[in-house]
């Protein structure tokens, strides 16, 4: 029946209002600390998950002898340079292997305005699932667009490329960023980095724009693998001697080379055998298997970055907690008489103590809630950068424990930060502080 709670809450509200300026500044510092810490935890975890455990339609990647990580980065994430080439025969061999369900060759080395061009087979559209049960699909032609110019318009509607023609299918991000659309033509540029002077003579027509997949594939331009072999200036060295394709004449398989073969196994466990065979016994090629393992190794290698970021976040929290202590502590001296009056009205020492602790916790609570908004801001910025650089899409949606734990921790730390000023308020002597006039 003491009804102290209502009184304490009123004391807290009045005090926060009377010191509105320092309350606001402290809240801002808390919100930045909270937002930053949630971001570090959430973005680190999500990035790792997206790269290592993300749904990938392949079990393994076969490529030139070298780094598995480089192979994975180059083929799955379309980053980094290709480690080299392997002969076409090796692709044919693995394609016929009874353990392999699907093998798709990749030829890379060209770009259009920075977007990588991958030469491959139609199977990438017809058989490959970029996510369990999901295949690439072309978007219907937009009726509001000006429409393809009559001279270049593909005879049929949007579709996948014809392996014998100079046709391209582009990812949704490519379409959005480059402005290319159904029916447009473009010239590929040599190399993986865009350079104005490296223009190839061939013209490709966009026959399809893919639906967004929220994966690195959105940043890719797909063309028939034959197109890469025949691109002007490209030289094939499958036999050890240089060979340049001639228009209208078949290219013998012995000349052909590919950068990588994407492999889907009949059963994931078969990868172990295949890995043994290619990596341990063979000497010419590398099999990246399992794909997630290579990426996990990458994250382990850059783990110290995460540790430093986490440490910085913790330090920022400590600084924010100290700012609560400082701002509340500063008000205690001027409030001594107020505490004495409250005590004379019957407030107990512990009531005054609780009010100051609650005040600190309230500042931390307001700051933490604002911190969630700061997090959304940081997340949007970081996700934008990660998407532009890698095509990996981070989603704000999924629940992350950090969203609850960090604000809850901040509120607890805020309450702890109030202990020192609360102790000072607790120790206020009533008789000596009642006397003077205001």
């Amino acid at each position, binding site marked *: *029946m*003491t*009804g*102290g709670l*209502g*009184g304490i809450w*009123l*004391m807290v509200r*009045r*005090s926060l*209002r*009377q010191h509105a300026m320092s309350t606001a500044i402290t809240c801002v510092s808390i919100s930045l600390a909270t937002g930053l810490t949630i971001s570090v935890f959430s973005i680190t975890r999500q990035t790792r998950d997206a790269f290592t455990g993300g749904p990938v339609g392949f079990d393994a990647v076969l490529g030139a002898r070298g780094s598995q990580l480089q192979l994975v980065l180059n083929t799955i994430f379309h980053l980094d340079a290709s480690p080299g080439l392997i002969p076409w025969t090796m692709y044919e061999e693995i394609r016929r292997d009874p353990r392999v369900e699907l093998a798709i060759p990749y030829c890379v080395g060209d770009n259009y305005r920075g977007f990588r061009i991958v030469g491959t087979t139609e199977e990438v559209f017809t058989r490959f699932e970029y996510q369990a049960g999901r295949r690439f699909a072309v978007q219907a032609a937009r009726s509001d667009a000006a429409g393809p110019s009559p001279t270049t318009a593909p005879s049929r509607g949007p579709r996948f490329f014809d392996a014998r023609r100079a046709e391209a299918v582009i990812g949704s991000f490519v379409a959005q960023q480059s402005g290319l659309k159904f029916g447009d033509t473009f010239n590929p540029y040599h190399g993986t980095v865009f350079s104005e002077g490296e223009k190839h003579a061939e013209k490709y027509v966009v026959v399809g724009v893919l639906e967004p997949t929220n994966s690195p594939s959105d940043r890719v331009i797909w063309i028939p693998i034959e197109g890469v072999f025949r691109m002007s200036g490209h030289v094939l060295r499958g036999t050890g001697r240089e060979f340049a394709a001639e228009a209208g004449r078949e290219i013998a398989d012995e000349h052909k080379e590919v950068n990588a073969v994407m492999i889907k196994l009949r059963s994931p466990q078969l990868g172990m055998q295949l890995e043994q065979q290619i990596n341990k016994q063979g000497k010419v090629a590398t099999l990246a298997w399992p794909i997630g393992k290579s990426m996990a190794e990458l994250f382990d290698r850059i783990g110290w970055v995460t540790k430093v970021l986490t440490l910085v976040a913790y330090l920022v929290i400590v600084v924010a907690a100290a700012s609560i202590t400082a701002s509340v502590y500063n008000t205690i001296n001027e409030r001594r*008489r*107020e505490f004495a*009056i*409250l*005590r*004379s*009205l*019957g*407030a*107990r*020492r*512990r*009531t005054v103590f609780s009010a100051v602790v609650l005040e600190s916790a309230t500042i931390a609570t307001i700051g933490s809630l604002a911190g969630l908004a700061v997090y959304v801001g940081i997340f949007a910025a970081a996700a934008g950068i990660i998407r532009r650089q890698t095509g990996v899409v981070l989603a704000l949606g999924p629940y992350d424990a950090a969203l609850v734990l960090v604000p809850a921790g901040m509120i607890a730390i805020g309450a702890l930060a109030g202990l020192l000023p609360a102790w000072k308020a607790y120790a206020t002597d*009533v*008789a000596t502080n*009642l*006397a*003077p*006039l*205001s």
Partner: protein
Amino acid sequence: MLALELTNLRKTFVAPDGQRVPVVDVPEFRIDAAQQLALEGSSGSGKTTLLNLIAGILSPDSGRVLVAGIDLTGSSEPQRDRLRARHVGYVFQTFNLLQGYTALENVLLAMAFGRGVDRAYAGHLLERVGLGHRVHYRPRQLSIGQQQRVAVARALANHPTLVLADEPTGNLDLRHAHEALGLIRDICREQRAALLLVSHDRSVLAEFEVVRKMNSVNLAALTLAAQSAGGVA
């Protein structure tokens, strides 16, 4: 039942020269329920210390304080706080209103620590002291006389057994002092609260039926007076 009973109450302070100086020495003092009594005493007669002992803000060196029959001296500090909140209303010379809070909130806070918040009664009290139209004003927005009336309403917030008034009219001019005194006395009578008022103002003391000199109640007052006189000489 007695509103207040003091027995052999003693309190000393340590002077700068290290000597213990008796400030309060009350062999016996009583106030009946709902009785109104004035103590005539100037500053330096130990009056504020005596009132703080009665309110349980200070602890005596020895002796007993009974408020509404409850022994303060045998109680812990939280118990004394609780007792003060429920049984004692305190009107200070400097009012001691909470500056950041409205008139209504000043009364409500006293209730929150006492018998619980009763908004209707808080409103009624402020109405009663003539501030029904000023409940949401802060002390700074009120005149001195109005601030005093908020202090009176606040002192009565928990239906106290005993109201202590320390020079309650000391900061008011003659006309307002007379009004304020009348209000305190009337409202205590209505609420059946006993009133112990300390003042050196003869016009204030003249209104009370029972007036006692501080010297006769607090034996230490004589030595205190002698000391301060000696100090001046």
